[in-house]
C-alpha cells in the first residue's frame, strides 16, 4: 500500500492543480459579476475538441495548446456579450440557469460534430513515456501538466498583482461602484475578466483531454470538484482556490488509495469539515452574516 503513496500523492497534485485552475476561472467570473458559470465545463470540452480538430489536421500539439484556448475565449466573449451581459443586474440564479441551458446545447452540438463516444487526443510522442525520478517513475505527460498548470497559475497571479489592468480587476471585485467612478469601463472589465476565466478553462480543457479523454460531457467531470474547490478555498481568493484545489486533489488521491469506495465523497466530507470550522471557506472574506 505505502509504495503507492508517492505516485498517488503526485496524482493528487496534478488533479489538484486542475481543480485549482478551473476553480480560479470560475471564481474570477463569480466574484466580479456574480455569475455562476455552469457552462464552464463545456468551454473546457470545447477547447479540447478544437485542439483535437487542429491536431487531426496536422498542427502540432503545442500550437493547439495555445490556439485552441484562444479560440475558445472568442466563443466565450461572444457568449458573455450576447447572453450573459443582460443578467448582470439580476439575481445570480438566472445566470446559473442560463449557463446550465447553454451546457445542454453545447453537449448536443459536440455530439453532433464529434460523435457521442470519446475521441482520442494523444499527447505528443515525447511526452508519452515515463520519467524516472529517483525512487519512483512518473508519466511524463503528467509532469508536464503539473508544470504547465503551475506556470499558468503563476502567470495569472503576476497579471493580477503587477499589471494595471489586473489591479483594476482586483479593485473592481472589491467595489464595482468605485471602479466605475474611477473611469474604468466596467463592461470591458467584465468582458476581459470573463475571457480570462475561459482562457484558463481552455488550457485546462486541452491538457485534460490528453489525460482524461474527450467526450461531449468530459468537461463536466471537473466542474463539480471546481465548485467544491471554490467553497473550500473561499470565494474571492486566488490563493484559496489554489489551496482548496490541492487539498481536494490530495484528499481524493489518498482515499483512492486507502478507502476507494469513499473517493468521490471525500471532497464533500472535506468541504463539510472546512465549513464547520470556517463558514467562509479557508481564505474567504468576511460577510454580513458572520
Amino acid at each position, binding site marked *: 500500500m505505502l509504495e*503507492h503513496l508517492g505516485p498517488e500523492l503526485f496524482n493528487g497534485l496534478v488533479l489538484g492543480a486542475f481543480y485549482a485552475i478551473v476553480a480560479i476561472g470560475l471564481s474570477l467570473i463569480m466574484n466580479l459579476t456574480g455569475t455562476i458559470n455552469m457552462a464552464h465545463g463545456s468551454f473546457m470540452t470545447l477547447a479540447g475538441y478544437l485542439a483535437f480538430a487542429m491536431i487531426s489536421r496536422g498542427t502540432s500539439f503545442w500550437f493547439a495548446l495555445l490556439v485552441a484556448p484562444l479560440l475558445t475565449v472568442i466563443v466565450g466573449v461572444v457568449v458573455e456579450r450576447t447572453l450573459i451581459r443582460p443578467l448582470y443586474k439580476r439575481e445570480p440564479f438566472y445566470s446559473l440557469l442560463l449557463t446550465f441551458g447553454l451546457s445542454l446545447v453545447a453537449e448536443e452540438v459536440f455530439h453532433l460534430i464529434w460523435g457521442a463516444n470519446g475521441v482520442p487526443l*494523444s499527447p505528443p510522442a515525447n511526452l508519452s513515456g515515463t520519467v524516472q525520478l529517483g525512487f519512483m517513475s512518473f*508519466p511524463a505527460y503528467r509532469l508536464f501538466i503539473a508544470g504547465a498548470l503551475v506556470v499558468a497559475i503563476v502567470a495569472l497571479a503576476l497579471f493580477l498583482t503587477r499589471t494595471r489592468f489586473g489591479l483594476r480587476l482586483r479593485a473592481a471585485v472589491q467595489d464595482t461602484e468605485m471602479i466605475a467612478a474611477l473611469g474604468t469601463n466596467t463592461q470591458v472589465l467584465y468582458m476581459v475578466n470573463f475571457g480570462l476565466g475561459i482562457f484558463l478553462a481552455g488550457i485546462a480543457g486541452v491538457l485534460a483531454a490528453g489525460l482524461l479523454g474527450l467526450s461531449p460531457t468530459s468537461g463536466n467531470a471537473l466542474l463539480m470538484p471546481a465548485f467544491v474547490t471554490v467553497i473550500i478555498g473561499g470565494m474571492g481568493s486566488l490563493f484559496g482556490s489554489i489551496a482548496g484545489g490541492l487539498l481536494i486533489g490530495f484528499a481524493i488521491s489518498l482515499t483512492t488509495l486507502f478507502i476507494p*469506495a469513499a473517493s468521490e465523497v471525500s471532497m464533500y466530507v472535506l468541504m463539510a469539515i472546512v465549513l464547520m470550522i470556517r463558514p467562509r471557506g479557508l481564505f474567504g472574506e468576511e460577510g454580513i452574516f458572520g
Partner: protein
Amino acid sequence: MSSSRLSRGSFVRASSAAIAGATIGIPAFIPRMGEAADAIKIGLLEPATGVYAADGENELRGYQMAADMWNGRGGVMGRKIELVKEDDGNDPGIGAQKARKLMNQDKVVALAGTVSSAVSLSVSGAANAAGMLFIDSGGHTDDVTGKDCKWNTFRTCHSTWMEAHATGYSLAKKFGKKFHLITPDYAFGHSLETAYKDVLTRIGGTITGSDLTPLGTTDFSPYLTKALAGKPDVLLVLVQGADFVNCMKQIDSFGLHKKIGIGGPQAELEAVQSLPKEARVGFFGIEWYYKSDKVLGKSKTAHAFVRDYTKLHSTAPSARSAFGYVTMDRLAAAMNDAKSTDSAKVARALEGAKFGSIFEGTAYFRKEDHQLMWPMWFGEVRREGANGDKDDLFDITDVHQADSIEQSIADKAKICTLSYP
C-alpha cells in the same frame, strides 16, 4: 458498454436528417395519431442522446433491417410491421414514461430496445405492470434475466456472466490461471468480479488481486505496478469508457502486454475504432463480428446481412446492429408462429424455439430465464485494420457455446422464477 463514433459522412447525414426532422417535425408527429390500423406496431426505446447515442442508432438500424425484410416478404400474418421509436434519454424515468406512452397511446404490441442496464430494468418493470412483452436488446446486467427476471422480459445480448465466462476460459487457456482484476467500483464491475471468481473456482485458478477503482480514475500506474508485483498470468481490465482508454494507454506505455496477458470482458467495434492506436491491445470477448468465418460461418443470412447493411449505411455492422436485427427477426417470427400479437402467446412462442440467424449455428431463448442462448466469441484486438479494411480490427480465435458460459438452469432457479399471470 461503449458506443461508436459517428463518421464524418454519417454526421452530415445525421444532422441533415435532424434538421429535416425539426422542420417537418410537427406534421410528422400528427400521422402517428391515426395511421393504418392493421400495422403491427413495435415500440422501440433507444437512447438518441448522451453517451450511448451511437449504440442506440446502430441497434435501430438492425431493427429496421429486420422489419424491412419481413415487410418485404409480406409482413407478419399479412400485416406490416411498423416501428415506433422513442428516445429513452438514458434515463430510467424517461424510459418508463416512454414505455407507457408507447403501450397506452401508440398501442404497440411489444417493446424492445435499450442500451443502459438501468433503463432495461425500469422498462422491464413498466412493461411487466402492463403485461406487455419486452425484449432487452442491449442492456447487459445479469439482473434482467437473473434476480429481476420477468415472464414478459427477454434479453438478446449476452449477460455479464456470459461475457466473463467466455473470456475467463479463453484467457486461462491461453495465458494461465492466475488473474489480476482492475475493477470499476460500481454495480457493473462488482458483478463482473463475481463472475470471474466463479470461472477461477471452476478451473482451479487464483486471483492475485482485485483493485476497485473509482469512476474517473486517470492514473492507473499504481494499480498496474501493484498488479505486476503479484505476478499474474492475466491482467483483466474491467473498467469502461474513458477509464478504459486511460488504462490501456498506460498498459501500452509500461509495455505490460509484452509481459502478461491483457484481457477484458468485451470489446465493441465502435469503441475500438475510437481508441488511439496505442491503446488497441489485448484479448476480449466479442458478441458478434461482421468479418470472421468463426462468427458468420456458412450462414447465408449472415453474409447477406453484412452485405446489405454495409451497402445501406456505408459502414460495417456492429454487434449492436446484430442485437437489433436478431431481436426484431425473432419477435416477428414468434408472432408469426403464435399467430397472435398477444404478449403471453408470443412469449410462449419465443421460449425454447431454436432458430438460425446471422451467425453460425442455432440459438434459442431459454425457457427458464428468457436469456438468448447464442455463442460468444473471443479474440485479439488489432492496432491497424487487416486485409485492406481499416475496420477489420478483431482477430477472432475462439467460440464459446452459450450453455458452457451461462449459469445453469439449476443455478438460475435459485434466483429467478418466471410466473405467467
